[in-house]
């Protein structure tokens, strides 16, 4: 009744292809953007910024990246953790080699380096498909982690092999290191995420996005209409790795501050990001956000309820947390196999018709 399509006619194709064709959606979008940029930084406390929102923003970038590869181009990858590690180590090397470099540039360069590595590991995708490819990307995962652990140059020959993010600034504000204001770090990540999300949206709605989806849906037919499979798959690998590399760089420098590669960027990280996009919705920008939010917030929420609220022992709470998250994944799949994004779409369609269902 309040959410209406009526009277919102499109007179140009330009109007029809915009991201939010409905005016109400558009207004809501701008309001939220304003809220995130102008209100949230001034009201959140350290806990919310450092422990919940920053990881959410960064993992949303990573899941956007993986969604481009897996959701849009149909190539299942389990090497996300390894590629995030590439971003993190590239970031570390750049930070220590060029201490005066603007942090934004460092992060973007780390992304490009990861994109190059991603291209390399994307080559076998031309021949290997489906789960075989998924398992094959594990080769990248394990090899990269091993490499960063083994070659001392990557961690500047430090005694233990850990890498630590030194303090770096952006426009005079510290964004990394212990003295960075969480709100500033939050804004830094939010800015990057917003820009990258817009770019992801732009790439996926145009020629390149359609060529990715064509390869995903039916590679033979895609070829027949002129899509070069190798170039298309590699471009998906490169773009996806760029996002994941940026996420890795931020994960290390802004969020954690110190990283041990095997622990932080291990296979668990790869699976976590994959869970995010599947739960959120494959081939959906919104799904990437929803999935990241679900996987970051759900455990925190459950923990707060069970330990903070009900006062249960932490181990029982942790076990039940596993069971609930696992159970929810299954239930979601049964209710809506196409993820939270589809659930959201259906809800909106219903709302459009409400209260007159026919």
């Amino acid at each position, binding site marked *: 009744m309040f959410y209406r399509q009526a009277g919102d006619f499109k007179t*140009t*194709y*330009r109007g*029809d*292809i915009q991201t939010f064709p409905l005016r109400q959606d558009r207004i809501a979008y701008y309001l939220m953007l304003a809220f995130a940029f102008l209100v949230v930084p001034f009201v959140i406390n350290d806990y919310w910024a450092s422990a919940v929102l920053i990881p959410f923003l960064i993992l949303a970038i990573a899941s956007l990246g993986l969604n481009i590869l897996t959701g849009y181009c149909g190539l299942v990858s389990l090497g996300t953790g390894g590629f995030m590690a590439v971003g993190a180590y590239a970031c570390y090397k750049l930070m220590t080699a060029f201490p005066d470099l603007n942090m934004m540039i460092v992060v973007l360069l780390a992304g490009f380096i990861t994109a190059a590595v991603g291209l390399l590991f994307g080559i076998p995708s031309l021949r290997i498909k489906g789960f075989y490819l998924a398992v094959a990307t594990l080769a990248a995962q394990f090899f990269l982690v091993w490499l960063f652990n083994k070659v001392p140059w990557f961690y500047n020959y430090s005694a233990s092999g850990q890498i630590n993010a030194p303090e770096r600034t952006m426009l005079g504000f510290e964004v990394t290191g212990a003295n960075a204001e969480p709100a500033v770090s939050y804004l830094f990540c939010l800015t990057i995420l917003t820009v990258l999300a817009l*770019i992801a949206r*732009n*790439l996926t*709605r*145009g*020629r*390149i996005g*359609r*060529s990715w*989806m*064509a390869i*995903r*849906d*039916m590679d*033979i*037919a*895609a*070829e*027949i*209409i*002129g*899509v*070069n*499979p190798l170039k298309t798959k590699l*471009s998906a690998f490169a*773009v996806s790795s760029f996002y994941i590399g940026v996420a890795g760089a931020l994960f290390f420098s802004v969020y954690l501050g110190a990283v041990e590669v095997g622990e932080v960027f291990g296979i668990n990280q790869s699976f976590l990001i994959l869970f995010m996009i599947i739960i959120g919705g494959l*081939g959906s920008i919104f799904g990437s956000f929803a999935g990241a939010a679900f996987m970051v917030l759900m455990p925190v929420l459950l923990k707060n309820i069970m330990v903070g609220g009900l006062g249960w022992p932490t181990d029982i709470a942790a076990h039940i947390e596993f069971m609930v998250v696992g159970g929810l994944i299954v239930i979601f799949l049964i209710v809506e196999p196409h993820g939270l994004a589809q659930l959201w779409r259906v809800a909106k369609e219903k709302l459009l018709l409400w209260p007159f269902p026919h």
Partner: protein
Amino acid sequence: MGARAAAQSIDQGAELLRVDDISLSFGGVKALTDVSFDVLRGEVRAIIGPNGAGKSSMLNVINGFYHPQQGEVWFAGSQRRNPKPHNIAHQGIARTFQNIALFNGMSTLDNIMTGRFTHMKQNMLMQAFWRGPAEREEVQNREKVEEIIDFLEIQAIRKTPVGRLPYGLQKRVELGRALAAEPILLLLDEPMAGMNVEEKEDMSRFILDVKDEFGTTITLIEHDMGVVMDISDRVVVLDYGRKIGDGTPDEVRNDQAVIDAYLGVAHD
């Protein structure tokens, strides 16, 4: 000069495509043996023959899925050397499939927009910015696609995911996707298989309209003899991978070899 431009400059009625002595086999099984024929610009050329005669294999050779062990393919006056299917698309050859090969995850509109792939040039950077050239290109191509949607009378299903469409409409969307490429040569693999009479009539009308309105050269495989004889200018007949007849529908209909090998055998 690219192959597409070369093909474009060929006169109506002149030779657009020629296959010479094509032989193709899969691990000892011969699919095609010494097949030769030509396709003239602007005509509807049909390939007929019983099941397993090698018709689809012939189309696959033309658009580069299979590379024949022997023989030459000439397109727009130059010989092709084992190109990839996506190169062929850029030369101006489009096709549809016997079993529908649509992009099931996308809407009708997106499927047909994807068909415009060879006509869109903006690079990734421009796409990422969107505003400006990329958006302009998108809108221009959208206009073309809307023309095709109007032409095929599928306005109502524009935003429907193709997976949900009935069979007949899916066939039509697939034709739309092929047309969106503005092909010079259009290959249709059994465009009317599985359709009822009404749908077949619609499809025949579309094929003839394509030929007349866009001047597209069409090569099609079809089982329904009536349709083939009605809409095609010339017919090639294959049997067991060999060419056994070639000519106008009337010539073929009266060719004794064709009658023996084919018309007397299958009626589907």
